[in-house]
């Protein structure tokens, strides 16, 4: 099969998968409770409940409701978010940007610390620095994230007053435009050093909290890979040529050790996105995780369904792109199809 046919075939199958996904999401949103639970009060009469149901079109048949919901989604209308008292599409992009920004910052923390510590430890295998590094990294994986977050708040917010909570200083945030929704990027675009500093300062603690947990995996992978690379013949050859050890490490061994580590980093980013819920709640970060937790606890099914549909579509599209890239990188994928 040619690549072109492969891509066309994947694109033709995509709408079918999307329809199936939407049916599953819609069905799950109707199971196990009222879709308008967030608006219901115990003293409401059945007539009042029916009135609210009619307002949201819930008095129609399920197929009619599904068609209306999908039709709205195709027009960019994913419904009304009860917990935010606003249309979902007014809220979701901002929340997504906040979570993405936090996850990227946490990934930077995790990658910087992980590669740095892994290199440090791998070059000193089985010596004291290696043990210390591994304890530090493993503690990140073992420490409950909510506990670590609270400890950081106690030390750096309550006692030292070095870092704030929340995403921004309201006045500084309002002083610049937000074309991307990423506060740091928007600050740079606006040329506002004050806003940039405000963004980074507010992000420091939550990013550190979220990133610390991922550091362990990256550290261990980097350490193991580097230790293996340092035993390779080409490293012996480089040393024999008289290269300083630091150059052997940086120019040769580390580069090769990064290959499996980058794979782990890529996988870890997905876990980072999932792990933002607790961090967003504790650091009062207005992201997707906290939004969803609120929606689940308050029974706002419209918001939950919109989020699940949006992320499902995003996931499908990303996978499609990845599969197409694989097809270009490895022809066996196409031939095998």
């Amino acid at each position, binding site marked *: 099969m040619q690549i072109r046919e492969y891509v066309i075939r994947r694109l033709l199958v995509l709408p079918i998968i999307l329809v199936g996904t939407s049916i599953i999401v819609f069905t799950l949103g109707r199971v196990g*409770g*009222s879709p308008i*639970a*967030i*608006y*219901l*009060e*115990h*003293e*409401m009469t059945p007539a*009042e*409940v029916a*009135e*609210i149901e009619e*307002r949201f079109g819930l008095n129609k048949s399920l197929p009619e409701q599904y068609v209306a919901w999908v039709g709205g989604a195709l027009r960019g209308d994913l419904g009304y978010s*009860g*917990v*935010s*008292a*606003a249309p979902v599409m007014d*809220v979701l992009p901002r*929340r997504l940007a906040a979570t993405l920004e936090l996850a990227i910052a946490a990934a930077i923390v995790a990658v910087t610390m992980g590669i740095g510590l892994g290199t440090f430890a791998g070059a000193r295998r*089985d010596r*004291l620095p290696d*043990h*210390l590094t591994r*304890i530090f990294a493993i*503690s990140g994986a073992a420490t409950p994230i909510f506990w670590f977050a*609270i*400890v950081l*708040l*106690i*030390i750096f*917010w*309550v*006692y030292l*007053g070095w870092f*704030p*909570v*929340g*995403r921004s200083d*309201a006045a500084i945030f*309002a002083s610049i435009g937000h074309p991307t929704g990423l506060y740091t990027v928007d600050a740079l675009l606006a040329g506002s050093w004050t806003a940039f500093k405000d963004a980074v300062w507010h992000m420091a603690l939550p990013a550190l909290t979220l990133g610390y947990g991922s550091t362990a995996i990256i550290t261990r992978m980097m350490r193991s890979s580097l230790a293996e690379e340092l035993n390779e013949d080409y490293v012996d050859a480089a040393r024999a040529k008289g290269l300083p050890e630091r150059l052997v490490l940086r120019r040769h061994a580390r580069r090769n050790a990064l290959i499996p580590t980058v794979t782990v980093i890529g996988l870890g980013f997905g876990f980072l996105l999932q792990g933002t819920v607790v961090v967003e*709640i*504790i*650091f*009062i970060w*207005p992201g997707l995780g*906290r*939004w969803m937790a*609120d929606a689940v*606890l*308050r*029974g706002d099914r419209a918001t939950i369904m919109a989020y699940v549909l949006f992320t499902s579509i995003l996931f499908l599209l990303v996978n499609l792109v990845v599969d197409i890239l694989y097809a270009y990188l490895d022809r066996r994928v196409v031939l095998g199809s």
Partner: protein
Amino acid sequence: MRIPQGRYGRLHVLVIIAVALTLVLAACTTTDESDETTTTAEPTGTTEASTDTTEASTDTTAPPTGGVNNPGLYVHAADDEPLSLDPAGVAAGEAGETVILQVYERLVEIGPGGPDLIPGLSSEVPTVDNGLISEDGLTYTFPIRDGVVFHDGSALTADVVKFSWDRALEMDLPEGNVSVLSDLVESTSVDGNNFVVTLTDRNAAFLNSVVTAAVASIVSREAVEANGGVVAGQPNDYFSANAVGSGAYTLEAWNRGETIELAVFEDYWGEPAKLDVRIQQVPDSDVRVLGLRAGDFDSIETDPTFITDLEGVEGVTIFSEGWLLEPVHVGLNLDIQEDLLPPEDTIPADFFWDPKVRQAFNYAFNYDNFIEGGLSGLGGVVPHYLPQGMLAYDDSLIRYETDLARAEELFRETGWWDEGFTLTVLVEEGGIFETAGLVMKDSMAALNPNFVVNVAAVVEVQFDTAHGEVPFPYAAWIKNADPFADPAALFAAYEHPDGEWGSVHKFRNGYQDADGIAALIDEAAVSIDTDRRIEIYQELTQLLYDDPMWIIPGNERALMAHRSWVQNFQMNPLWPRPSLKFALFDK
């Protein structure tokens, strides 16, 4: 100390260092004792929202330590976010009322020293004596205050007041609280600069429960007409997210999930506010406590479980005077459908019909454990059936106390002592309701090991869903009562055989004299003779003690933690949660 040699010796040292570091970090989380310690005020047994009487908070000079954070801005950390800011669409007790209280005004208001009413947008509080309430108690005349402007610059008139009330009635949103108006108001009219309301029936609670309610807030007519107008049965999207009132604050911004920003309204007709306000959404209770300690928050939504974290903390004052008008209730179901109960329950449909069984549960409950444990000592037992601070309350009113001997006697008389039973009580997980459920469980088990109470703790939305089901699918549930300013509304909802809960739980299956109780409640609701009302409610207290439809584990004190630099701090439980009017504060 000689450090062991070799790799494993060094490892031992490392482990010791790590453990030591952990202990140091743990030590950092303990609270500080301080010379600036403030103590909680002694309970006064009233709902008077007096200022905190501790030394630090009456000091009106410069704050004792470290300056003031956020000068010019008052930051309150809230645990909940509004679903709507529209007076016509906000439910009673919902977070939107917090904003409505600051941004909008009503014809009369409950004063800071409440429960007495003070003029609001009406220049006088109607009474029979001043002729603004008709002799038959059906017509109320409100002379509208001159010189009041809304936040959009439009002027307040009697026509605008009528428009506001008619708007809420016409929209008639089921998720709102308009029934308090529609159940009573027959018509509204304008007579010169007076707003006139005619009721369908006399109601003693009309002024303090209806006119002061959020739904009766006065909105700018111009703003409504410019933003969607009035559509019957439909919410107004603009006013769900914006507010144009005449209050001391304007709504500057609602950053969902983050903050609600209020600014001082410069053209306010009354005493202007001194500080702008930020209501910060902080869902986690521990973070609210930390933020107060850090000084980033000036006050936080608190409950008794946080008090141990805040007592003795430098710069923090715990306001504890007056009582919440929301006693914790254990609802007993007299309309049990056995096929709906959890499979492990063994009680029959008529389990709670016998008043002796209900009395026995009341005698068995360990009130001290709940009040000292669940409420951290910041609560009290409620007479059956008038909470502290409400009209007709008296310290001498009879109330249940734990009496295991009497409980056993009653269970023996009813035949349950030897047979035993298992039932399930539904509660919201976490917080004092779950604690009350566990106290109930332990109380019954301590009385008789054959009395098994299972506590089904669920998240809020699951509780609300089950709570609204008719018939109710559990034997009992636990929640605090809705807050009412007047006993008429409280009794109508919680004790009347045909009221809100009377009809759901079929009180008529259990009351020994349902018609008699109904007659007394109805008479007190329409009487404008205060003395007669007090007499009736006190008589009802005795009747309901003998024939209880609820277990009342306790009533919480009005409680709020705030920074000591806040001046003029006042809290009135008769105001919507968090019972604060920010315009009164300074720092």
